[in-house]
């Protein structure tokens, strides 16, 4: 069984581990690093529960090999809150009741975070298209869209205040 030493940055911390070639990024995160935020849903690239950020792109980590991440910068849901303060998207999901069972939430949060980096002031339609790779079976998406709108507003206010 061949293993390769890979190094990457995960949530700002350098990680160096030997991985089996066939280990998927989601299994590497959950089982080798104990970062169990990203969830395993469909395992075939459809549901988006395993979404993480690789080098500034949203990616489904169930369809990506850990060995491919050599030298990458990875953000998981564990990396969103800073110094115990929730990120604006997390606060939005909390304030707007953007979840029920919570299974899709880590993927939704990381995807919403990236969507707002790419498009800080999205329309409702752009939000719905932006999260179209993430399935939620509870909410009907209504409050998720509101949560992203909440976060967009808050991030813009913060940016304006800082300027």
């Amino acid at each position, binding site marked *: *069984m*061949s293993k*390769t030493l890979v190094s990457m940055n995960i949530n700002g911390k350098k990680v160096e581990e030997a991985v*089996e*070639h*066939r*280990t*998927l990024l989601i*299994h590497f995160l959950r089982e080798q690093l104990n970062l169990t935020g990203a969830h395993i849903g469909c*395992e*075939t*690239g*459809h549901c*988006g529960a395993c*979404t993480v950020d690789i080098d500034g*792109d*949203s*990616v*489904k980590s169930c*369809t*990506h*090999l850990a*060995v*491919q991440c*050599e030298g990458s910068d990875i953000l998981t849901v564990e990396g969103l809150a800073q110094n115990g303060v929730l990120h604006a998207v997390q606060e939005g999901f909390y304030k707007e009741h953007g979840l029920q069972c919570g299974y899709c939430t880590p993927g939704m949060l990381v*995807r919403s975070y990236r*969507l707002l980096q790419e498009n800080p002031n999205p329309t409702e339609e752009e939000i719905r*298209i*932006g999260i*179209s*790779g993430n399935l939620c079976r509870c909410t009907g998406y209504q409050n998720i869209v509101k949560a992203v709108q909440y976060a967009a507003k808050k991030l813009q206010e913060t940016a304006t205040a800082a300027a």
Partner: protein
Amino acid sequence: MIPPEFEYHAPKTLNDAVALLNQFGEDAKILAGGHSLLPMMKLRFAEPPHLIDLNKIEQLRGIKEEAGMIKIGAMTVESALLNSDLLKEKVSLIPKAVKLIADPQVRNRGTIGGDIAHGDPANDHPAIMMALDATFLLTGPDGERSVKAVDFFHGTYMTDLKENEILTEIHIAPLPANTGTAYFKLKRKTGDWATAAAAIVLQMDGDKVSMVRIGLTNVADTALRATEAENLLMGQALSEELLNKVVDAVTAVCNPAEDLRGDAEYKTAMAGVMTKRALIDAASQIR
């Protein structure tokens, strides 16, 4: 689900990739975006002993105009196609169609070359490439050769690629201004494959069709070019009567596999509907 064991190779140059592929032959599979291959490996539909990952080969990515042709590297991801100003201006069919392929995350990893070389008739780029009359550049140990899109697809998962060749570049002639383009895709949800889809490139001289190419997705064991339907359109005005004849010519060449998206009769009928709507849409763009 975990894929079966394999050896992973990440060459940094095309020459190294071709050498590896030539060494391992049918024991190796090329890894592009992985969004078809990795799920197939998890389900044990594919168990290649070696994976050759092309993601580290920078020369295979990018979209450029050179010597009067639009050249797209095979490892260019869908989201790059979607956001390309060059394509929006000169090959508008591609960004329009890519909007209907997969979802944002998958478009960040899925590549145009992988979509084509996989040989799946449900994939969208094969019919789009036929409508654009694209040429594929294939690279093997003895050098390069080129194949027209319409000659590349032999059957489900079967293409003109030899076991030691890699699809490296796609060449498309830029479309003249005032060309109408449309991709109409019936699908059940975001990320689904087409129940049926039609790709159109259309030019008019006054109210008469002066050039038209029609590609069809997922209605046979390969993408199809609907040449009979094109011949009916040439030199004619787009009357309701003619469009209905075109629909008949399109449905006559369809032979889809029944699945959860519908039976053969339904998919065939939908290929006709998508073609008609796409033709009307493409014509409406022409001044």
